[in-house]
């Protein structure tokens, strides 16, 4: 078999592998832009994954499943929001706790749903386009969630940089005291940003449990929430770069599996590390440019805000 013929399948698999990361990273990006650091992405993804799966099994409707997953993610995030925004709990500690909580809660909810198979989503097929060589399958042969994740990128970008609401959200993230002085409801804006982040994480998790590997298994996100968090910094808080980062990560993940299958003599442990190494490497490269980080990182990221203080 011609190894070049593998480029098409690798690209197709790359987009699918990047999708859960992209959903979660875009959500977290908006959260961080509003000045809140929520480390609970992994937990919210898991809760979204199990709720979406459970509802789809019960109702047979994937649309309902994804809606419930987004809602469940947001509900989990609202816990974090109440604790950190209104009760002024430390964001890092609360975020970590949220992940642990999400792992446990999702396992509990999922008890009765283990070992139940589910049909994945149908894949797009456009005659003449999907069977095009190399890029056909990758561009025109995915399922709807893969396209939705990509479509969310320009939407988030437009919202943040071209709408008034986006401007206010960024202002809150940059300087909450000034935004407050101007009369903006800092806490309310952050609350909704956190909910949005939770909903997106929930969708990312549900993509895994309802489509990518249509089944529920405890802890099935296997650290993808953490990768999504890293991607936000990697992207210097820019949606398009987050997408490129997700593709890079997904691409390296898939590529290393192919390298092994082809019998190329590289240690598999090293190959398994590659996606993470690539992420760290790019992080280091970006961090060298202090100006770039400073320009994009929300100045109030992770800082608590008390309106009366």
């Amino acid at each position, binding site marked *: 078999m011609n190894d070049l013929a593998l480029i098409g399948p690798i690209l197709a698999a790359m987009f699918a592998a990047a999708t859960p990361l992209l959903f979660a990273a875009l959500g977290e990006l908006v959260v961080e832009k509003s000045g809140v650091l929520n480390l609970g992405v992994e937990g919210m993804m898991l809760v979204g994954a199990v709720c979406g799966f459970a509802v789809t099994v019960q109702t047979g409707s994937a649309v309902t499943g994804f809606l419930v997953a987004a809602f469940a993610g947001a509900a989990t995030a609202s816990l974090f929001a109440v604790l950190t925004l209104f009760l002024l709990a430390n964001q890092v500690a609360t975020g970590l706790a949220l992940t642990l909580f999400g792992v446990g809660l999702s396992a509990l909810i999922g008890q009765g749903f283990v070992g139940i198979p589910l049909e994945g989503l149908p894949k797009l097929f456009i005659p003449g386009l999907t069977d095009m060589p190399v890029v056909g399958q990758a561009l025109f042969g995915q399922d709807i969630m893969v396209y939705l994740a990509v479509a969310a990128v320009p939407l988030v970008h437009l919202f943040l940089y071209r709408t008034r609401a986006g401007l206010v959200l960024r202002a809150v993230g940059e300087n909450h005291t000034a935004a407050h002085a101007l009369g903006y409801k800092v806490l309310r804006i952050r609350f909704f940003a956190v909910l949005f982040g939770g909903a997106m994480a929930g969708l990312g998790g549900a993509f895994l449990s309802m489509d990518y590997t249509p*089944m529920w298994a405890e802890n099935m996100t296997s650290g993808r929430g953490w990768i999504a968090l890293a991607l936000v910094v990697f992207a210097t808080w820019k949606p398009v770069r987050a997408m490129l980062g997700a593709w890079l990560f997904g691409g390296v993940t898939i590529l290393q599996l192919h390298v092994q*299958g082809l019998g190329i003599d590289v240690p598999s442990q090293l190959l398994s590390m590659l996606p993470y190494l690539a992420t760290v490497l790019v992080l280091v490269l970006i961090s060298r440019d202090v100006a770039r980080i400073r320009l994009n990182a929300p100045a109030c990221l992770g800082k608590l805000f008390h309106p009366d203080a």
Partner: protein
Amino acid sequence: MNRRTMGKTVLGLAGAAMALSVGMGAAFAQEKLKVGFVYVGPVSDHGYSYQHDQGRLAVEKALGDKVTTTFVENVPEGADAERVIEQLAASGHKLIFTTSFGFMNPTLKVAKRHPDVKFEHATGYKRAENVATYSGRFYEGRTVVGAIAGKMTKSNIIGYIGSYPIPEVVGGINAFTIALREQNPKAEVRVVWVNSWYDPGKEAEAAKALIDQGADIIVQHTDSPAPIQTAQERGLWSVGQSSDMTRFGPKSHLTAIVEDWNGYYVDRVKAVLDGSWKPIDTWGGISTGMVELAPYNPAIPADVVKMADQIKADIVSGKRHSFQGPVKDQSGKVVIPEGKTATDEQILKMDWYVEGVQGKVPK
């Protein structure tokens, strides 16, 4: 009879202080044996840990009036495992099963500190005064599966998803490949290591990669049913691991290598109860029932099923061995000469691929 009624009865019969102490002693002997189980995955994985837990339930069912069981799931292999095992030992468990290879050193460390507690470590090779080891000869199941795959493949490429390159997994790949090429000398095996026992997403990605490279049968030595789902989606064959995974891909699932610990666990707990427990090594195969094959897919032709059953029967009768000479390694060198079979030691230390496997064993 529980401890309190026992004490009362004895008291009532003798009615003396002396009898009271005897009663206490008898009650103490009557105290239930606490048995602990440590699993690497969730009980609900419907694979490796699930099968171990079935064994635990079998113990409860058979000896429930004499033992109580505890399990800890999702225990990572490493420092955390030692803490969990230590906790079980410290909380009065007198027999502890640690069910994954990576628990080997933590088990031995804890065993040293608790000489009165008996330990059973699965798939390892280090024993001590109070540490026994046990494992299944799963490679025997892989021989049967390999022969079936040899008959069923059309592309002559088999995709094999490995967890970690430890002897058990490498030996499984070899047993599979030998039987595969006996039926079909042109077939080859491509291996992808995912460096995890349980990561559905990654296992699915590995299955996709192997299928995209032309594999038409996916074999796995990882625990989630994700590869079966992927194979089903692509309309190809797959082989399940640890338990019957048919429902995840009824059209794809050829069979599965099933691990059945029930008999062993009941026997070992009985041995502790009657004092005959010894730190031995048990390595049971198809003949002992520790290794089973899940029901064959109805789409497998009758002559292939017949062949598979014959191979199983031959393994049980000893007529056939999974590593029967001549076995050549990848360079063509004969490692197991004609007329010989691999020794247990050779199988337990296997770190080389037989002819027909692509790539190299990661070191």
